């Protein structure tokens, strides 16, 4: 049986991400409205909601590229507003709208980003993620000429370079075929189970969410409307599937019996 050390136990008890009363206003528009949630170690939390619900705004605030109007974000025990560098050393992310450098090869991209994160024994770590995501044939290929599936794998390899405590994945499998998506989901799950990383995952693919996420948060108009296990939540609200529940949240949130 695998034994857990005391520091590891302490770490597994503390949320890797703690969001409290987080709010973002753009002029008169409230994009995120005082939301609070946690992500625990080894937990994959799905952040679901229709387009414009505030998912990417929330992720941008967690990544410190967008300043909250109010509220706090604590990552791995440190406040992101006052300890940005330390927080971001333990965080990473991947998203289709944040491609890597098209004119650099896979190896060069991973080296540059590895240096940005100040990773020790970088060459060794690069070889590990290259093996993990089956990128061996492409190591000297420019990122820009890869297929979208291959690019996604490189994005994920970059996101795992620093073995983050918190991994943010904004629709990581969007535009991928089901076969590649399945492999990528398996790779992420394996990574999460083998360490103490917590994942915040956004997706519009409810099948994927049910398969991967331990817990989901439904966001609509900047507020968290529902939270729970994606496999039991639809039944709790009298819906046949997670997709039905999603559609209800998106179209008629008031019809749900929310307490």
């Amino acid at each position, binding site marked *: 049986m695998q034994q857990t050390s005391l520091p590891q136990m302490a770490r597994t008890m503390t949320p890797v991400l703690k969001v409290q009363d987080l709010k973002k206003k*753009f002029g008169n528009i409230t994009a995120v409205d005082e939301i609070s949630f946690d992500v625990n170690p080894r937990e994959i939390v799905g952040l679901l909601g229709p387009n414009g619900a505030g998912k990417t705004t929330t992720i941008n605030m967690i990544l410190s590229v967008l*300043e909250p109007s109010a509220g706090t974000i604590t990552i791995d025990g440190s406040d992101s507003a006052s300890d*940005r560098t330390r927080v971001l050393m333990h965080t990473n992310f991947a998203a289709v709208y*944040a491609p890597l450098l098209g*004119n650099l090869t896979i190896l060069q991209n991973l*080296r540059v*980003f590895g240096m940005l994160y*100040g990773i020790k024994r970088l060459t060794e770590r690069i070889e590990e993620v290259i093996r993990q995501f089956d990128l061996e044939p492409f190591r000297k290929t420019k990122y820009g000429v890869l297929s979208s599936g291959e690019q996604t794998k490189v994005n994920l390899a970059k996101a795992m370079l620093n073995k983050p405590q918190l991994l943010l994945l904004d629709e990581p499998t969007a535009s991928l075929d089901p076969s590649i998506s399945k492999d990528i989901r398996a790779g992420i799950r394996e990574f999460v189970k083998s360490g103490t990383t917590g994942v915040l995952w956004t997706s519009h693919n409810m099948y994927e969410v049910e398969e991967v996420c331990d817990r989901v948060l439904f966001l609509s108009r900047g507020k968290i409307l529902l939270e729970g296990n994606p496999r039991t939540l639809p039944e709790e609200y009298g819906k046949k599937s997670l997709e039905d529940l999603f559609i209800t949240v998106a179209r008629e949130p008031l019809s749900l019996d929310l307490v």
Partner: protein
Amino acid sequence: MRISPIFAIVVREYYLMRASIARIVPLFVWSAIDIVLWGFLTRFLSGLVPAGFNAVTVLLGAILLWNFLIRIMQGVSTTFLEDVWTRNFLNVFSSPITIAEYLSGLVISSIIMSIIGVIVMLSIATIGFGLSIFVYGVLLIPFVIILFIFGIALGIAGSAIVLRLGSSAEWFIWPIPAVISPFVGVLYPLSILPPWMQAIGRLLPPSYVFEGMRTVIAGGGISSASLLTGFILSVLSIFIACGFFVYVFRYAVRTGLLARFSAEST
């Protein structure tokens, strides 16, 4: 400041340069053309002006130093624009890099890129037109330092303008040296300018370099107070430029401009 993130920016530029002749050629080609053009012009003028006026040293030397400033400035701006062209802000600024480390990376990249341009310019001016840069003696050192610092300041200020206004604002960056040059007396003494232009010129560090350069060539002594003023102004300019960049960066983080940089704002 940590070394690793700074060199991440430098290494990225090295990888990009190594793989693309289109990135290497502009580092020296325009400056080289300038030196060739002015080299022949000074050779022509040398036959027209009275003996004693060394057109090569006065004019070509000034053009070379001015191009040095331009190369430094463009080195900073081009490295910054790489992140604009590749829409890489989200990846870079969601990493633990600080603004000071990022700007340091831009400056070191600029120094390396500028060396290539300076070597080419100096070779053409020396071999082709007989310019001896050592005619300025040890004063060449403060001249270069002042122009270097001011070039960095212009590059950082230009980058802040693009960060604030969006990628199309890069066209504001390229003409900055041309706009400044009439005020700093690259090719003529400040005294021929109207008073209001002289007043602006005295606020710009390169004025002290080009005035000093002409004094040295004419055999006069240059006052250390004048050099010190140029140096203090150049240091002041870099503080202002860094402050401006930090201000714009914070604005971009507060308003969402950084996260959605592809959408230009005015």
